[in-house]
């Protein structure tokens, strides 16, 4: 018997003839294995991704619903009043008239005379911001009084609008030089995603607004609401909406 096996066509034909019944099942089996990797696994990954996306969208829907409820329940009159107060405290522009009125009123209440004024105006149309990161209008004034009068003037000015801050005090006998800043802030263009959670004012903030609403002011705020840009456009949201 010849033990050497040679793979010639005769041998292959013989092997095929003996095992041809097994060919089709093995082909089916291997095709199934390939299909598992090519279709089943990707489908499974897609399902996991779908489930994750559904969870995210459900959370987003809850935020949207809460926002809608919050907006519906917010009293417009109170909102307008609070906004008006905040705009008086922090005007949209360099409000020279209200600054002068505040200074005059503070001096009058303190019983002191006013000397010269000096505004550091800069570009009237341009917003300037210093180290405080909020834009401000710098004013230098002279008060015709010493420490007592200066202290009373500053105390009165601190409870007048727009909001101001004393940067430096220089008292020489009966004259006081004050460097003041009056803060303002432009109304920016607002880009809001509707699913950003709307937060009501805290009780501290509400109390603060209530307190400053009783302060005197020389300003009349211009209440123009900037256009709200929403990433998901719908017909109702694209118009400019004044108060």
């Amino acid at each position: 018997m010849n033990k050497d096996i040679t793979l010639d066509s005769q041998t292959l034909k013989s092997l095929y003839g003996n095992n041809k019944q097994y060919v089709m099942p093995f082909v089916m089996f291997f095709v199934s294995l390939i299909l598992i990797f090519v279709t089943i696994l990707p489908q499974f990954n897609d399902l996991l991704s779908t489930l994750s996306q559904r969870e995210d969208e459900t959370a987003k829907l809850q935020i949207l619903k809460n926002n809608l409820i919050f907006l519906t329940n917010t009293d417009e009159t109170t909102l307008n009043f609070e906004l008006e107060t905040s705009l008086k405290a922090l005007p949209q522009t360099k409000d020279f008239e209200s600054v002068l009125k505040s200074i005059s009123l503070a001096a009058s209440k303190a019983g002191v005379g006013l000397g010269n004024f000096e505004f550091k105006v800069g570009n009237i149309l341009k917003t300037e911001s210093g180290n405080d990161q909020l834009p401000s209008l710098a004013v230098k004034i002279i008060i015709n009084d010493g420490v007592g009068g200066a202290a009373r003037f500053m105390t009165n000015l601190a409870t007048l609008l727009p909001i101001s801050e004393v940067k430096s005090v220089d008292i020489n006998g009966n004259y006081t030089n004050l460097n003041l800043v009056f803060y303002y802030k432009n109304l920016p263009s607002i880009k809001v995603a509707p699913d950003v959670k709307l937060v009501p004012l805290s009780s501290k903030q509400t109390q603060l607004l209530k307190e400053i609403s009783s302060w005197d002011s020389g300003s009349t705020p211009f209440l123009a609401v900037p256009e709200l840009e929403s990433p998901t456009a719908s017909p109702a949201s694209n118009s400019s909406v004044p108060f």
Partner: protein
Amino acid sequence: MNNDINLISGDLGVSQRATWKLDRVKLIAKVTVLGVGLLSILLFLLSRVFSPQSIIKQQNEVIAGIAILADKQAKLIVLNQRVNDISTIFKKRKNYDLVLSAIIADFPANISITSLSVDKSKISAIVSSSSLISLNDFIDSLKGMVEKKQFLKNVTINNLNLNGKTSGYILTLDMDLL
């Protein structure tokens, strides 16, 4: 009779085993194909059932409702931003009026402030008096403010001079604010 030469039974045993083997292989192949098919259909159906489309549809309805209240939303956002800014200003604002009021609260009668400057976290003052006792009382009141941590962190006396012309004393000092 030699039973070893029973050709019929030997062929039947080998043939039967081969048939079983083939049948098993065929069964496994069929089950595999069927399983893959069923699994694919199942996964497809689950993807359709758990599709987020219905949630997104609800979101669009709510967004449409929010869009009607867009001006209210804008006002709320502006209000929140502004109140935060106002709070920040009040937190950082130095109340120099309170400091000065506290310093002159217990001011002895015969002391006058020649000059005083306040800048950031420091007060520099020159005070004059004809009485050393009054100046001493003034320094004591400042010392009390430092001990009570009332506005002042530190008081440094730079100079004490006698003005020969007026016979008055001139005290120069610096105060560091808390």
